[in-house]
C-alpha cells in the first residue's frame, strides 16, 4: 500500500500546526503542500544528524547506559508524526529520538538528557530510553518492549472518554508483536473502537533476530486480523507513503471507526545499540537498503518537483548539523543535576 494524504490548504500549513480538514486522497502532496514536505525533510535530516552522533558520544563516555539510533528509519517517525495534529499523542520505544524530533521535540533538551544534565527533558533522571515531552504529546520512550502499546491504548481510551477527538499513535518495533500486551491491548482497542494507530516499525531486526524467525505469520499485518483491526503495509523508506497511511488511519480513528494497524517496512542502519558488533547481517544487505535511503529518496523527489535545489538541500543539512552542534553545546554547558535532585519527582 502506498497511501495518499489528506488535502491540506497550503496556506493553512504551518510547520508545527498542521490542520487536517479532510482526507480525500491527493496525488501529489509535494506540489500541494510543499512546505509540509520540506518540513518533513528538515525533521528527517535532524533525526539523521542527531542519531549519527550517538556512537561517538557513547565512545567518549558522554552518553551512558543504552542508547539506540534510528538512522534509516527517519521516514517512519516523520511521516507518521506529521500526519497527526499537534494535540495528538504518541508513545515511543527504546529507540525514541526520531519519534521525539518528528513530533516537534527540542533537540537541546534531548541532548541534555542523553548527557545526563539537569536541563534535559527528564532532568537527567531518564536518559535515552526515557525521553518524554508531554507538552508536545510525546508520552515517553520506554525500556520495556511492548509497554508503549499499553500506555497508548490507555491514552486512546482517555481520549475516547474525554471526547477530545485526539488520536494516539503507538510506535513499536516488529519485535514487540510477540508480547502478550499487544494482544491484550489490540483487543481492548478493537472492542472499544479506540482512536489508536498501532504503528509497527519493521526495521528487520529485534537485536539480531529476524521477524521471519520470531513471528509465526509471514505477514506481520496478519496479526492485526486476530483483533479484527484493519491493517496496511507501507514502504517505511518513503515518508509520503507513511504519511498517507497514517493520515487515513487518523481520520478513521477520529471518526470513531476504531484502531488501525500499520506496518512500515524499513531498516536499522546502526547496530541495535551503541556497542553492537552487528555480526548478524551482511554488508550487501545493508547496501541494498541504503539504495532506498529515505533522505535521498525524498531529496530526489523534491528536486524532481523543482522545489528543492541542491543548494537548499545542503543548507538544510547544514542547518541540521548546526542544530545538533548547538544541542551538544547546550548540553555540555549545562550542569549535572545536584545530588539532592535524586529525591525529587517521585510523588506528585
Amino acid at each position, binding site marked *: 500500500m502506498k497511501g495518499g494524504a489528506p488535502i491540506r490548504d497550503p496556506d493553512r500549513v504551518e510547520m508545527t500546526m498542521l490542520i487536517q480538514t479532510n482526507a480525500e486522497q491527493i496525488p501529489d502532496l509535494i506540489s500541494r503542500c510543499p512546505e509540509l514536505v520540506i518540513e518533513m525533510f528538515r525533521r528527517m535530516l535532524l533525526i539523521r544528524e542527531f542519531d549519527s552522533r550517538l556512537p561517538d558520544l557513547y565512545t567518549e563516555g558522554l552518553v551512558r547506559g543504552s542508547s539506540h539510533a534510528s538512522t534509516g528509519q527517519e521516514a517512519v517517525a516523520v511521516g507518521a508524526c506529521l500526519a497527526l495534529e499537534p494535540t495528538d*499523542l504518541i*508513545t515511543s520505544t527504546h529507540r525514541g529520538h526520531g519519534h521525539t524530533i518528528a513530533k516537534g521535540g527540542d533537540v537541546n533538551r534531548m541532548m541534555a538528557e542523553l548527557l545526563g544534565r539537569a536541563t*534535559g*527533558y*527528564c*532532568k*537527567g*533522571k*531518564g536518559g535515552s530510553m*526515557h525521553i*518524554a*515531552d*508531554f507538552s508536545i504529546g510525546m*508520552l*515517553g520512550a*520506554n*525500556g*520495556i518492549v511492548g*509497554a508503549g*502499546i*499499553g*500506555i*497508548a*491504548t*490507555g*491514552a*486512546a*481510551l*482517555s*481520549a475516547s*472518554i*474525554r471526547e477530545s477527538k485526539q488520536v*494516539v499513535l503507538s510506535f513499536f518495533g516488529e519485535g514487540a508483536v510477540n508480547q*502478550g*500486551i499487544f*494482544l*491484550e*491491548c489490540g*483487543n*481492548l482497542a478493537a*472492542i*472499544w473502537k479506540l482512536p489508536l494507530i498501532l504503528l509497527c516499525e519493521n526495521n528487520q531486526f529485534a537485536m539480531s533476530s529476524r521477524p521471519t524467525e520470531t513471528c509465526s505469520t509471514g505477514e506481520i499485518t496478519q496479526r492485526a486480523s486476530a483483533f479484527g483491526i484493519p491493517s496496511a503495509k507501507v514502504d517505511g523508506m518513503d515518508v509520503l507513503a507513511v504519511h498517507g497511511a497514517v493520515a487515513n488511519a487518523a481520520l478513521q480513528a477520529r471518526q470513531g471507526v476504531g484502531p488501525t494497524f500499520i506496518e512500515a517496512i524499513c531498516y536499522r542502519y546502526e547496530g541495535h545499540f551503541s556497542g553492537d558488533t552487528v555480526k548478524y547481517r551482511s554488508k550487501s544487505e545493508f547496501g541494498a537498503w541504503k539504495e532506498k535511503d529515505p533522505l535521498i529518496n525524498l531529496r530526489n523527489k523534491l528536486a524532481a518537483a523543482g522545489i528543492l535545489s541542491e543548494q537548499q538541500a545542503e543548507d538544510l543539512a547544514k542547518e541540521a548539523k548546526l542544530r545538533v552542534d548547538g544541542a551538544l553545546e547546550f548540553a555540555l554547558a549545562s550542569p549535572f543535576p545536584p545530588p539532592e535532585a535524586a529525591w*525529587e*519527582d*517521585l*510523588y*506528585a
Partner: protein
Amino acid sequence: MPEQRSVTYSAALNEALQEEMRRDPTVFVMGEEVAVWGDGGGVFGVTKGLVEEFGPKRVRNTPISEEGIVATAVGAALTGLRPVVELMYGDFLTLAMDPLVNQAAKLRYMFGGQVQVPLVLRSNIGASGGKAAQHSQSLESWLMHVPGLKLVLPSTPYDAKGLLKTAIRDNNPVVFLEHKLLYFTRGPVPEEQDTIPFGQAMICRAGGSATVVATQAMLKMALTAADHLALEGIELEIIDPRTLVPLDINTIIESVRRTNRLLICHEAVERGGWAGEIAMQVLEHVFDYLDAPISRVCAKNLPVPYSTTLEEVVIPRIQEFISAVRMLVNGSNALESVFL
C-alpha cells in the same frame, strides 16, 4: 449529631466510588465483571449500581486481560483521567506487575516530574474459605518494596471508605488492597465521612504490656486475642498502620517506647514479609527501648493449601498469636532458651 450508620466494608467502598465519581467526572472504573456480576458489580459487590448511575463509559467491564487493563489505566492516568481498576483477586497482580511496577510507579520519576499518574489499583488479599494457593495470597510486601507506589490496607468499613476517597484524589499510583474476609463485615460509617489522610496509624486499643502492629483479618484476630490476654493481665496496645506506604512509623515508635515490646502480625508469608521492614525501622529508632526481641506472627513459608486442617496451619491462628504474645511478655531470657 446524625445517628451512627452501620454498613458493610463492601458497601462502604461502593459509597466511596459513587461519591467520588459524582464529584469528579474524570474518575472511572474498569475491571472484570465490575458492571454485571451478581446483583450488579464485581464479585464482591464493590462496584454495584455504578453502571446504572454512571453508564458503561465510566464503568467498564473488561475482557480477562490483567496486564492490558492495568497498562491501559496507566495511559489513561497520564492523560487526564483517574482510573480505578479492580483486579478480581490480588493473586492476579502477578500478571500486571509490569504496568504497575515498571510503568505506573516509575514514569513520573523517569520523566523528571513532567507528569502524574493518578491511578488506583483495587484488589484484595487474604485466605478465605479454601480458595487455595492461587486465590489466597497476600502480596502487599512486594508492593511496599516499590518506590513510587502508595499502599493502603483498610481494616474497617470506616477506613475503607475514607481511604478509598483519599486514594482516588491522590495524584499518584495507589494500590488499595481489601481483605476477602472483611467484605461483609459491618461497622459504623457516618454519613458525612470524607477522606482519611494517608500515613496516620490508628491505635485500636491502648495498653502497656506490648505493642502489636497488625492489619485487616490479623487485626481483628489481635483485638479478639487482646480481650483474652487482658484476663491474664497482659494489656496489648494494638496499632493498625492503615497505609504501609506512607508508613506512620512514629506512632509505632512512641508506643514501643511505652511498652518496650513489639509484635508484628501479618497474613503475608513470613519470609521477606513487611514485618521485617517495620522491625528494621523500629530498631533504627528505639533499639534501646526494647526489652525483648521483636516478634512476628505471620503466614508460614508455604503456599496456602485447600483443606481446612492445612489452611489452619499456614494462616496465623489466634492460639498461635496468644502464645507468641505470652512469650514476648515473659521476657527475652525465656525466649532465648526456646529458640536456641
